[in-house]
């Protein structure tokens, strides 16, 4: 979307940039004149869904955002939470869905780059990444190459910068055939008193530009990310940014070093909408104005227009407000690291932006009306007409051979081992990874303390599709449960709300209901939302993705000495099932993958029961009573038991008073634990006092998994199941 200098500015041009007729009128009204092309470009970026949250804002207000540990909630580049010993955790998750579908390798890579900058721009050193990925059916067009490209892109970027990718999730559903999801999460740590913010201040303070030069890549990426896909999307390939992880690594070190000079007032990365959003947002937060001379911006090639410079999304760039007279100290650091650095403007009084190029004023506008007073929409929301049919209780076929059903489930891409994915990510660099990918939650050592940080990302889009309120609740509850399995207490969450077209009332209903469900669970389980991102228009040719509100949650393990494994570690341990089975199959993996049924109400989420279970797991872990703890989720008890035997190839023999189908029920608030026989009574007593149903179901040992159920017996060799499970994904991908 390069713009000729003489381009006419009118409503038609505005519409091409994604502004509605009403929004264009609003802009001309604000200015009292026809905007220049640069002004129109700036406004369309700032008012894009991606930057302004105009359709989601009214609903996001429902999230609880404060708490005892929260130092910074939503509104900055990332959330900040106190994790003890003088340390804070800084984290956020963001989507890079649209770019990754157009160009998977660069799209995913720059998604990682962008989220890392959001974290180190706040003065934190990134120490971990998670990736939540959703792909379509493997046989859908381009799908295998999309998967390969995304995984390579994430790996190349994170590995080179040297930040371990310690977890995440990879799911599959046909609704993502034409619109995959790439949600990247980063967490950094900083000393509590050394957090930096993106709030410009100090009239006369210079504005510095540091990092890569500006080129024509990614122009109007934020607007592209706020549009849906069609056959024309291929033409948008030039709007995908190109990443350079080596420059990111150097920029990271230079920024952290420059922050130690004491000369930085405010700093923000140039992410979506590049120089536009970084300068306008910083000025808006600080209630000041700014003047920019674009002739001083380091360019990759000469001849870029003001419009192109303001809208470029070239990667690995930062904007810094330095203290007047001290900017040399900052400049020297960037030069030492071999990076471009230039003074491109200054902070002014009066809240206006003035942008020059070639001696001409290309934009002159008041800032607040474009940022704080961006359009906000109360879009209509309505449940789908066929909701009752979708939620009607499904017929649940009873498996003739539950052992065969289990093996088939473990061979689906959804439940198969994801080791093929995470072995391509460096998950041990930085030497803090205590529990890496493949468990319930990753655990990182907070060096110099006994404390661990636990991370997980969760959502079940099928549940959200069948009942968005319950699905939203479940995503938060499962994350809390996963953290509890490693003994961690949640301190905050970030989310990535991926939905279809908000102009469709059904989609708006999904969004509203998911948010309400999440908010309910956050309140009940005391987890504040400290940052997040909304990605709308995830649809292709009118077909929307399943509602996918990805939750990434951070928890604290007070003492790492006691962390149980997610799998059985020794023979002779007692196996105890916590929670209650209610034979719930709506949206279950069993129905969906083995019988093609996606119907019914998803499992009920009892938030009180979830709270009791999480408290119990943390208490048991804190007293070193557990050898293993693993939550029950997709695939139910049978899959959880199988997974628990894989880690150390320790079998188990259990008996449960359940029918064959119930082995695959996905009732919530359940977990499997294993402890030494000497501790079993104490564990059961604890459970009783905590009000958590607990039943000793058997013991570990041997090389087989044996489950006696009502009317039969499931028997399988652990080695054979493990082979099926571990080879399924690479074999299905044929890579």
């Amino acid at each position, binding site marked *: 979307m390069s713009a000729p200098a003489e381009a006419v500015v009118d409503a038609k041009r505005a519409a091409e940039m994604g502004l509605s007729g009403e929004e264009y009128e609003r802009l001309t009204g604000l200015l009292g004149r026809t905007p220049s092309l640069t002004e129109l470009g700036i406004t369309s970026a700032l008012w894009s869904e991606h930057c302004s949250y105009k359709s989601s804002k009214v609903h996001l207000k429902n999230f609880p955002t404060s708490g005892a540990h929260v130092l910074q909630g939503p509104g900055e580049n990332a959330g900040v939470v106190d994790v003890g010993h003088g340390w804070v955790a800084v984290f956020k998750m963001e989507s890079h869905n649209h770019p990754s579908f157009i160009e998977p390798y660069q799209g995913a890579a720059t998604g990682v780059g962008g989220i890392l900058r959001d974290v180190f721009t706040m003065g934190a050193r990134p120490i971990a990444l998670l990736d939540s990925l959703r792909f379509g059916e493997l046989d859908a067009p381009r799908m295998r190459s999309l998967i390969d490209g995304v995984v*390579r892109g994430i*790996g*190349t970027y994170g*590995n*080179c*910068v*040297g930040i371990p990718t310690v977890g995440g999730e990879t799911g599959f559903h046909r609704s993502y055939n034409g619109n995959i999801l790439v949600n990247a999460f980063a967490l950094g740590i900083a000393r509590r008193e050394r957090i930096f913010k993106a709030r410009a201040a100090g009239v006369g303070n210079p504005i510095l530009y540091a990092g890569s030069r500006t080129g024509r890549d990614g122009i109007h990426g934020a607007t592209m990310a706020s549009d849906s896909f069609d056959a024309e999307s291929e033409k948008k390939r030039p709007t995908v940014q190109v990443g*350079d*992880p*080596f*420059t990111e*690594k*150097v920029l990271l*070190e230079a920024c952290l070093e420059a922050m130690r000079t004491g000369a930085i007032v405010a700093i923000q990365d140039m992410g979506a909408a590049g120089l536009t959003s970084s300068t306008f947002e910083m000025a808006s937060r600080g209630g000041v104005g700014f003047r920019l001379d674009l002739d001083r911006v380091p360019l990759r090639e000469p001849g870029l227009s003001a419009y192109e410079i303001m809208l470029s999304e070239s990667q690995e760039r930062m904007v810094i407000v330095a203290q007047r007279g001290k900017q040399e100290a900052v400049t020297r650091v960037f030069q030492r*690291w*071999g990076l471009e650095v230039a003074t491109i403007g200054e902070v002014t009084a009066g809240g206006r932006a003035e942008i020059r190029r070639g001696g001409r004023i290309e934009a002159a506008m008041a800032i607040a009306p474009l940022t704080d007073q961006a359009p906000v929409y109360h879009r209509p929301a309505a449940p789908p007409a066929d909701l009752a049919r979708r939620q009607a209780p499904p017929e649940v076929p009873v498996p003739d051979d539950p052992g065969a059903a289990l093996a088939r489930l473990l061979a689906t891409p959804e439940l198969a081992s994801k080791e093929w994915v*995470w*072995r*391509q*990510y*460096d*998950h*041990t*660099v*930085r*030497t803090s*990874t*205590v529990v890496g990918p493949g468990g319930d939650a990753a655990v990182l*050592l907070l*060096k110099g303390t006994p404390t661990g940080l636990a991370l997980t990302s969760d959502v079940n889009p099928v549940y959200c599709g069948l009942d968005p309120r319950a699905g939203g609740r479940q995503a938060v509850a499962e994350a809390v449960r996963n953290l509890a399995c490693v003994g961690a207490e949640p301190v905050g969450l970030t989310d990535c709300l991926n939905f279809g077209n908000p102009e469709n009332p059904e989609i708006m209903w999904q969004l509203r209901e998911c948010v309400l469900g999440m908010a309910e669970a956050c309140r009940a389980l005391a987890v504040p939302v400290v940052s997040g991102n909304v990605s709308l228009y995830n649809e292709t040719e009118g077909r929307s993705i399943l509602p996918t509100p990805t939750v990434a949650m951070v928890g604290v393990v007070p003492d*790492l000495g006691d962390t149980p494994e997610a799998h059985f570690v020794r023979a002779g341990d007692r196996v105890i099932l916590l929670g209650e089975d209610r034979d719930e199959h709506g949206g279950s993996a069993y129905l969906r993958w083995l019988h093609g049924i996606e119907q019914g109400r998803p499992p009920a989420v009892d938030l009180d029961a979830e709270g009791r279970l999480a408290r119990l797991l943390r208490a048991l872990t804190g007293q070193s009573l557990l050898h293993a703890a693993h939550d029950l989720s997709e695939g139910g008890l049978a899959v959880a038991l199988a997974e628990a035997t894989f880690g150390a190839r320790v079998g188990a023999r259990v008996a449960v008073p359940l029918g064959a189908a119930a082995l695959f029920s996905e009732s919530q608030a359940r977990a499997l634990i294993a402890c030494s026989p000497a501790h079993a009574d104490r564990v059961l007593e604890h459970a009783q006092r905590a009000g958590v149903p607990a039943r000793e179901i058997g013991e570990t040992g041997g090389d087989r998994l044996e489950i006696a159920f009502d009317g039969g017996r499931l028997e399988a060799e652990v080695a054979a199941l493990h082979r099926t499970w571990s080879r399924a994904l690479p074999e299905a991908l044929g890579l």
Partner: protein
Amino acid sequence: MRCGVVVFPGSNCDHDVYHVLKHVLDQEVRFLWHDEPRLHGSELVVLPGGWSYGDYLRGGALAALSPVMGAVREHAERGGLVLGICNGFQVLTEAKLLPGALRPNRGQRFECRDVYLRVERADTPFTREYAAGQVLRMPIAHGEGNYEHFPYELDRLERDRLVALRYVAPDGALADEWNVNGSARAIAGLANAGGNVFGLMPHPERCAEEVLGNSDGLALFAGAVRGAAQLAGAGR
């Protein structure tokens, strides 16, 4: 014991090596900036993992020509101890301080996982704390760790006993499926003829503390520190 950890702009295991030397082994450590041809009296020099200068050409190709490497070369020629880990091993081969080259992994993908190593030589300063034949578990994380050299050179390496570590199965036997990057002769680590320059693809610094579930790598640093102290004591 003065240790130096070289920092190229794209090094990303520099802090990890520093941590082990300083906080686990309680040694004096400083970072050595790539742009300066000085080692500041370091007796043990470590080239850490990472992407030295981006390595878009070949791992370590540019780093081999950097100012600091001139000083490292002199140090090595005087018999000083030099350890290259992962990217540092690549730099040492590119600088011809160790023979051979590291090509993209056989599977053409980055591999991050635990591997098993058999100690072939326990008489270098870096392996002296191990027993010959001992099997170690160590993480790898690389895309280009596939060791290669001409066949007659490989024969010479074997004859001169320069191969210090080999990829093996957990029981210590050679097995192709455990040679995960496809290295010639399953070579994971090499020493020079003097034993004072040592390179390996696996990351001993990532398995040097019990809290991480594995401390098999600690003895490599402990041996190097002791070896360097002896060299210093001999007043070379």
